Every structure is written in structure tokens, then in C-alpha cells.
């Protein structure tokens, strides 16, 4: 959904996000919704400015979100609050699951298919009965082989018939019945027991949200890293998507799940990824251990035969043509062998360990400050110290760039700077206003910005650095005859350079991403024009159409809707794909193609014109009639296998997946597990304390706390501050922003402060097995003690944006955290760990005599 579409919501639940403080620009649309009569609810461990502006605030303990959301699912199902016409037609609620499916309710907290030695699941028993369902192509897809080591043959089962269904919902293994059993114990009492949210408040919130959903009303969730940074992060978001599927809040005005992205191009760095496991626009990176030896086998294995992703070969081959140009031919598999192949998890956490093990020899660090922002900072510094070289580009000195001089280990006296052999290159980088480029953030909105002024001195844009690095590498390997160097030799790298500084033309990169026809170089206007025969080149199919013709960069567009217009603001910048603001918006109309209500209309079927039309770009085949049904006798493929009333076109069966048969590594339904570190035992599954598939690396220096470890009785969470931008350095070096939040602190409830004799603004030491920090106490009623499973549990919180550089300083919160990973994404847990806290100062003095914090 578009950020501004929040204004059309009748109820907004802000959870896992502090929207008012961390997304203040977008928060205006929540305020507007509230002005129009919407109920705004904030559910969070801390009472923040977002809470202060909400109609209802509900406190919950960090890491208990699935218990809360699972309770909502149960309450909606058991009280028949769901939008039956929507969910029956558009979700897989009536689909029948394999007989062998086993639920955590019958298996001590584990789904069927669990391998306790490997710590992974087989998804065989999670499938639709008689089918093997390919997951949609998405980030992290190629982690397991999804039963498709047979070049995709099993997936062909989706072309033979629709998945078996029971519209009466009586079949014991239909999704409806499975969900009812799965969530039966997530009662209001259990929600209170796990989360500490009073049961009456929980019920009130659920009923308000449900009653603000249906034909005439819609509700939305907003979330940020308060949901993602958990060992169950993906499943928390899944729980919200189940609620929205049940209530009909997807693909409709004011309905959805709003992923709040950061100021910087977080969405963009996933779309055109800086991630290790994806090619641009979510195409899977080949894996050497899968059936990916040739491009044909890779495509046969990974391409879902039904649904929109059946077009994947067009996008892959067009990408290879964009990257390798004339060197990509049909004979050499379009240059597929130039692509590196995965062997394992190369995300940040394992690579930190690999640095420690001296596998990695060098690292470029652009646009981030991992000495502050990465978990287990001291282990990160140890890794840095084992590198041969490091390149850091930033516009001010960062903790990462001078870890060798002032890092934790140096200040603790464990190592002297001259003993660290890493050769450090610190290069000055241009600031955002000093360069052209685009930012893609919340709502998939791509916005272009022009250079305002030249960067000073030797400062250069990141684009300049990457382009010139590439040019030098190509020159270095120009005469090589080694096969491994062919990838660099074959790479197209012909970006025009301008001016004295030889700055690359940023729009040339966007044109390449948009795509062109190979024969005449003409820009492609629509991804539906892309081909799998090498005649088109496209650097990222979802962005196709952003630069549809020469001189027409639609991300520059800044025309808002005026009074009397739809309010979709289709002329404001550009959203992928095809400037579509709401994904799956076919669901805004009923199965017959009529809007569910006049108040909530978005797109609809126009019988006279025989096409879909409305206030947004339809997310459907424009001329596919609502009454189209697949002819299963013809083994339909692609979109032919989806009916005219199947809005979720990226899914293999066109249905919203309440139950996920493939693609998730930790279960088809969200289940409450305690955080990896928790002061309490799991009240729901006493024998399964935490997510059994979570990635844990319990090596020396990264030890984890046991459940209910009395040495670490408190829940610890981290958060951002409005006044501190991203990792903080940009604002910590500026006097006028630094003075607004001059040093690090820890938020503690008055009750905990009194029991520990910690006074407001007094010094405290917070400790974990990974390290300790000292900060002043902010004793505040923003935090209240929780009552979990019958006993009092305290939570404390600390901003993670401080370090030893700049005017505003403070200990690095990430010293306390462990390197762990969600099974699906490898994302770390920063929102719910355990710790201890005491009044006073650290026992060991800083050998440099310069504490991070003011004294």
C-alpha cells in the first residue's frame, strides 16, 4: 500500500514500530486517518510519542508478538469476525493439507518434518494434498531445494488440477480447521500470560480492528525492525498477514501491512540488492549444491509453472543480457556461468565469523558503520583486526574506520593499535545532496534527487567509486586468460563519465535497470515486453517502465493529486511494478469484479470496455475476465492456470497463503516461541523454548544465555532516536543535532530503579556474556514492569546509535548483543535479549582515558 493510503484506514495498529519518532514524515498519514475518524492503536514495550498520539496503547513484552497476534487470529476465528466472502474466495482457508501434517499442538511445539540433527524442516507434509507447491520467487528463496531436485517436475502437479478444497470448511485437514486447532490455546488469558497485555485490553483491540474491517471498512498494520529483528521475525509478519487475509485487508484502500523503511534506500538495497543471495529484483542467486549447473537447469528448477513467476526466464535472461551484453549468447547460456554460485550463508553474521577465522581477507564498507550497527561489536572488531585490508567510505570519521585506534579492545588494553595489521583506507564520500541518484524506500516508492552542490575536495559519490573500481578491475584483468576472470572481462561497464571529476551518469544506471531492446537500444516501457530469447536487456524487471523512453525518468515526477482526484497520487514519483501503488489490488473487487463497496473501491472490471480499470494500475491481466476459469484438461501454465478471481498472482495458485506450504524454514503457521534469550520459560510449549530452526553460533565470544538464567534476569531491547540519523554518525558530528541527544542512556522503570537503587541520571553498568556497557539511567514511566506467567519481569531499553566519535557519545549498545539469525533471513535479534544491570561504573578503566560517554 502507498504510505499515504494509511489516511484511508479505519483502524491502524502500529506494532513493531515507533512511527511518530522514527518515520515522522509518514506519520502524518496516521494523523490524517485519525482526523477522519480512524482508531489508532500502538502496541509496544515502551510508551513513546507514537503511544502518546494513539487512541489506545497496549504494552507487551518484547518478543511476544506472535502470542498477541495468534490470539487475535483465534479470537477472529472463534467469534466469526472474519470477512467470509473475501477469505473464502481469495485465501487458501479451504485448502486441504497433506494427511501427514503434524502441528506443534500435537508434537510438543514442533511441526512435522523436523530433523533434530540438522535443525531444519522438510516441507513434504505441509503441502496441499497431492501437490508440490513452489513458493513465490522471493528473497532467500534458494536456501532449500523445496522438493524440486527433479528439475521442477513435482511443481507440474499445480498444472493438473486446482488444489483440493473444502468450501464447507469441515474437512479436518483444511486450513481453517488446522488454524483453529493451532491457535486454540492462544486465549485472551494466555495472551496476558505471555505478553503481559491485560486480556480485556487485548480483546478490545481485536474487536475494534475486526469491526473496522469488511466491505465498508479496512484496517492496516504498520511495522519496522521491531518485528523483523527477532528469531521469529518473518513469522511475526506472517501472523499479521493471516489477520489481514481473514479480515479482507489486503489489496484494498486503507488495508495492508505497511513495511516502514528507513530514510536511506533500504527498500532499494533489497530490490537492486546489496544482499548476497539475490540477483536484482528478487531473482534467486544460483546455488552450487542445487540443480543449477546450467542456465536451463537453473530455470527449470526454480521457475514456478503457474502464476506470474512463470515469467522468470524472461527476467533472468534479460538480466544476463544487461550485465554481459554481447558476451551473453544462447550458446554460452547467456553468460550464466559468469555468475557466482552460493555454497552457504554469506550474510553479515557468518561473514563476521569468517573474518574472525581469517577466511575473508578484505572488506569494503560503504553506507554503514558496523562497529556501531552490527551486533556483538567486539566480535566484529576482532574480525576487522584479522583482515589484511579495509576500505571505509564515509563523510565523517566513523567507529568502523578507527576501530584499530580507539576500538573496544584497544580501550580495554587487550590489544595495542600497532598490533593490528589491518591496512585501513578511509575515503571521503559525498553526502546525499552532493550527488544524483534515486532513493527507494517505504511503499516501493522510487524518488529521484539531483545534485545540489559539488562535494568538497576529494569526496566522491559511491557511484563514482564503484564505477571507477570496476573500470580499474577490468583494466587489471584485461589480458588475463584465466577462466575465472572472464566474468569481469565480459561485464558491460560503459557508463558515460562527465566533467573534471569523471562522475558517472546516474541516469545511465537507471536506464540500464529499466531495460532496452538489444537490436536498437530503445527503452522498454513495460516488463511484459521482456523476452527470454536475448532480444531484451533489463537490469531489474520490477523497475521496468521507470524510464520508458529517452529523457523520461518517471522517478522525477512530482505531481500530487489535487482536490477531486482519487488520492492515489500516481504522478508522484514512481512505484514498482509499473507504478502500481497497491499490490494484489484485484482483491479490492469481489469475485465478480465489482468493488466490495463504493467507499472502498480501487479497481473494478469494466464490462463495456472488457478490462480492469479504476484508481490504481491494476495488478492483474488487464483483459482477464472475472469469470475466467482454467481449463484443467489442457494442463494450463502461467497465468492461464489462475482464475479471473485469483488476485494473488505471484502465488502458484493465486490465493493469499494463510497456511504456507513451501518457502518458510520454520513452519507453515506462526507459533509462539520465546526469544533466543528470555527470562521466562515458554508458557505455550514448555519443551520447545525457542525457534528450533533459529541460527545460533555459540562460539567463544558469542555465548548465549540460557532460558531464565538468574544472572541475566532482565529483558533488553534497543531502539533509535528521532534526533540521530541511522547509525548516528551523521548527526553525532553535527553540534546542533548532537546537543539534542547528547549522550547514550538506558531507560529503566521507576520500579526497577528503586529496587536496584539506581537514580535518575546516575551511572549504570549493563552486562551480558558478550560484554558490558556503562550509561546513565533515564528513569522513566515510559517503561512498566510486566507480569509474565505469574511473575514480575522488567524490561530496559537503550538506543543503539552511539559510539565514540562525534560530539554526542556513548557506549555501543551492540556490545551486549549476540550474533544470531532468523532461519529465513539470517536477521539478527536486537529487540529481545536478556541482560543484567547494576548501579555504578565499569570495573576496568579505559586505557585511553577517554570513556565513550561524558564523565
Amino acid at each position: 500500500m502507498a504510505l499515504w493510503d494509511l489516511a484511508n484506514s479505519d483502524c491502524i495498529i502500529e506494532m513493531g514500530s515507533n512511527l511518530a519518532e522514527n518515520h515522522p514524515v509518514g506519520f502524518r498519514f496516521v494523523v490524517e486517518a485519525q482526523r477522519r475518524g480512524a482508531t489508532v492503536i500502538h502496541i509496544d514495550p515502551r510508551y513513546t510519542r507514537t503511544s502518546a498520539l494513539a487512541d489506545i496503547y497496549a504494552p507487551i513484552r518484547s518478543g511476544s508478538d506472535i502470542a498477541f497476534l495468534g490470539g487475535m487470529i483465534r479470537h477472529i476465528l472463534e467469534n466469526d469476525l472474519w470477512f467470509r466472502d473475501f477469505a473464502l474466495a481469495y485465501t487458501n482457508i479451504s485448502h486441504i493439507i497433506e494427511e501427514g501434517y503434524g502441528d506443534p499442538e500435537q508434537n510438543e511445539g514442533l511441526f512435522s518434518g523436523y530433523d533434530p540433527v540438522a535443525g531444519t524442516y522438510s516441507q513434504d507434509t505441509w503441502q496441499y494434498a497431492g501437490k508440490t507447491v513452489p513458493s513465490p520467487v522471493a528473497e532467500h528463496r534458494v536456501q532449500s531445494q523445496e522438493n524440486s531436485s527433479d528439475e521442477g517436475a513435482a511443481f507440474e502437479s499445480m498444472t493438473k488440477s486446482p488444489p483440493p478444497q473444502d468450501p464447507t470448511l469441515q474437512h479436518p485437514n483444511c486450513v481453517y480447521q488446522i488454524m483453529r486447532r493451532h491457535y486454540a490455546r492462544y486465549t485472551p488469558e494466555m495472551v496476558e500470560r505471555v505478553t503481559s497485555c491485560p486480556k480485556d485490553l487485548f480483546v478490545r483491540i481485536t474487536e475494534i480492528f475486526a469491526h473496522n474491517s469488511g466491505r465498508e471498512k479496512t484496517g492496516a498494520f504498520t511495522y519496522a525492525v521491531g518485528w523483523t529483528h527477532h528469531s521469529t521475525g518473518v513469522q511475526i509478519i506472517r501472523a499479521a498477514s493471516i489477520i489481514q487475509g481473514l479480515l479482507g485487508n489486503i489489496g484494498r484502500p486503507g488495508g495492508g501491512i505497511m513495511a516502514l523503511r528507513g530514510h536511506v534506500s533500504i527498500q532499494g538495497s533489497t530490490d537492486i540488492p546489496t544482499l548476497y543471495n539475490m540477483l536484482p529484483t528478487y531473482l534467486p542467486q544460483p546455488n552450487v549444491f542445487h540443480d543449477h549447473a546450467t542456465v536451463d537447469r537453473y530455470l527449470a528448477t526454480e521457475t514456478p509453472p503457474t502464476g506470474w513467476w512463470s515469467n522468470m526466464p524472461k527476467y533472468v535472461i534479460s538480466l544476463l543480457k544487461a550485465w554481459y551484453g554481447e558476451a551473453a549468447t544462447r550458446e554460452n547460456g547467456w553468460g550464466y556461468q559468469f555468475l557466482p554460485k552460493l555454497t552457504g550463508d554469506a550474510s553479515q553474521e557468518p561473514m563476521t565469523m569468517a573474518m574472525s577465522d581469517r577466511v575473508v581477507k578484505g572488506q569494503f564498507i560503504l553506507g554503514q558503520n558496523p562497529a556501531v550497527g552490527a551486533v556483538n561489536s567486539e566480535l566484529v572488531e576482532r574480525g576487522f583486526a584479522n583482515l589484511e585490508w579495509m576500505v571505509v567510505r564515509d563523510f565523517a570519521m566513523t567507529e568502523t574506520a578507527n576501530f584499530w585506534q580507539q576500538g573496544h579492545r584497544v580501550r580495554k588494553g587487550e590489544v595495542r593499535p600497532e598490533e593490528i595489521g589491518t591496512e585501513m583506507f578511509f575515503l571521503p564520500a559525498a553526502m546525499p545532496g552532493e550527488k544524483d541518484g534515486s532513493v527507494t524506500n517505504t511503499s516501493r516508492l522510487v524518488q529521484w534527487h539531483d545534485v545540489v552542490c559539488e562535494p568538497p575536495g576529494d569526496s566522491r559519490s559511491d557511484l563514482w567509486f564503484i564505477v571507477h573500481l570496476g573500470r580499474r578491475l577490468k583494466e587489471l584483468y584485461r589480458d588475463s586468460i584465466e577462466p575465472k576472470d572472464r566474468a569481469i572481462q565480459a561485464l558491460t561497464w560503459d557508463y558515460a563519465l562527465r566533467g573534471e571529476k569523471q562522475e558517472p551518469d546516474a541516469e545511465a544506471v537507471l536506464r540500464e535497470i529499466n531495460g532496452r531492446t538489444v537490436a536498437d537500444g530503445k527503452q522498454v516501457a513495460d516488463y511484459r515486453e521482456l523476452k527470454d530469447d536475448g532480444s531484451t536487456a533489463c537490469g531489474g524487471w520490477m523497475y521496468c517502465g521507470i524510464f520508458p523512453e529517452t529523457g523520461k525518468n518517471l522517478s522525477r515526477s512530482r505531481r500530487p493529486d489535487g482536490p477531486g482526484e482519487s488520492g492515489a497520487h500516481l504522478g508522484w514519483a514512481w512505484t514498482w511494478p509499473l507504478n502500481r501503488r497497491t499490490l494484489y489490488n484485484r482483491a479490492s473487487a469481489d469475485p465478480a469484479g465489482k468493488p466490495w463497496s463504493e467507499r472502498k473501491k480501487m479497481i473494478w472490471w469494466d464490462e463495456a470496455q472488457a478490462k480492469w480499470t479504476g484508481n490504481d494500475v491494476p495488478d492483474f491481466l488487464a483483459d482477464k475476465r472475472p469469470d475466467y476459469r482454467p481449463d484443467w484438461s489442457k494442463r494450463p501454465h502461467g497465468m492461464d492456470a489462475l482464475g479471473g478471481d485469483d488476485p494473488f498472482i505471484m502465488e502458484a495458485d493465486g490465493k493469499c497463503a494463510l497456511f504456507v506450504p513451501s518457502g518458510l524454514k520454520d513452519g507453515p503457521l506462526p507459533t509462539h516461541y520465546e526469544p533466543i534469550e528470555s527470562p521466562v520459560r515458554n508458557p505455550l510449549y514448555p519443551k520447545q523454548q525457542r525457534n528450533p530452526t533459529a541460527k545460533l553460533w555459540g562460539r567463544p565470544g558469542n555465548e548465549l544465555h540460557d532460558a531464565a538464567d538468574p544472572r541475566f534476569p532482565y529483558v533488553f531491547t534497543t531502539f533509535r532516536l528521532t534526533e540521530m540519523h541511522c547509525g548516528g554518525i551523521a548527526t553525532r558530528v553535527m553540534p546542533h543535532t548532537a546537543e539534542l541527544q547528547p549522550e547514550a542512556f538506558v531507560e529503566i522503570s521507576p520500579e526497577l530503579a528503586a529496587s536496584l537503587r539506581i537514580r535518575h541520571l546516575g551511572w549504570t553498568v549493563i552486562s551480558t556474556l558478550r560484554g558490558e556497557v556503562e550509561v546513565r539511567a533515564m528513569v522513566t514511566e515510559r517503561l512498566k514492569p510486566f507480569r509474565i506467567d505469574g511473575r514480575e519481569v522488567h524490561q530496559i531499553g537503550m538506543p543503539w546509535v552511539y559510539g565514540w566519535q562525534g560530539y554526542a557519545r556513548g557506549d555501543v549498545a551492540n556490545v551486549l548483543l549476540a550474533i544470531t539469525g532468523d532461519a529465513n533471513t539470517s536477521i539478527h535479534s536486537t529487540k529481545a535479549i536478556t541482560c543484567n544491570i547494576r548501579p555504578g561504573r565499569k570495573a576496568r578503566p579505559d586505557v585511553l582515558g577517554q570513556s565513550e560517554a561524558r564523565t
Partner: protein
Amino acid sequence: MSAAPGRESGHRALAALDIVLARKPERDDDRLSEATAELTKFRDAIIAEQRGGGVRSANDRQHLAHLNAVLSVVLGVHFPLGETPWDELQKARDWLSDLVRTS
């Protein structure tokens, strides 16, 4: 051909991998760390020799490429994506054995 530099590290890596293959531990096991560290030493010794002008033939370059491949598989077991590739680790172990034996 004279003995490859760091060959002792190769032997130690081989011994660690044998234990790993016998035990098939969960991820980030000490022996995997040991194998990784020894393979890295083996690799770094070969690189150092080659940078010092010690490349005698295309075989020497291949030697390094093969060792890097073994290291990639070991990392894939150390930090797996989905299923742990035990069968491939066995192949990598045998490849390493050949490298150590023939170098």
C-alpha cells in the same frame, strides 16, 4: 614437485574434516572452525609463495583454485543455507586429500 607450502595445515584440516564427517555436528562446530582456520593457513601460504614468484606452472594455479573450492564447501557446511551439504563435504574432503597427497 616440492612440497607445497602450508602442507601441514592441509593435513590438520583433513584430520578435522574427518572428525566432522564422523560426527556430523550442528553448525559452527569447533572442528569446523579448526578446519577452516587450517585451510586458510594452507591457502595463505600458497598465495604468499605465488606472490613471491613461486608459481611454476598452471598446475600451481589450479592447486590454489581447488583449495579455494574446498574452502567454499567447508564454509557451506560451517554456515549452511538450508540443508547441510554433507555429501559434498565428503567429496571436498577427498579432493583435499588428493591435494595434500600430490602437493
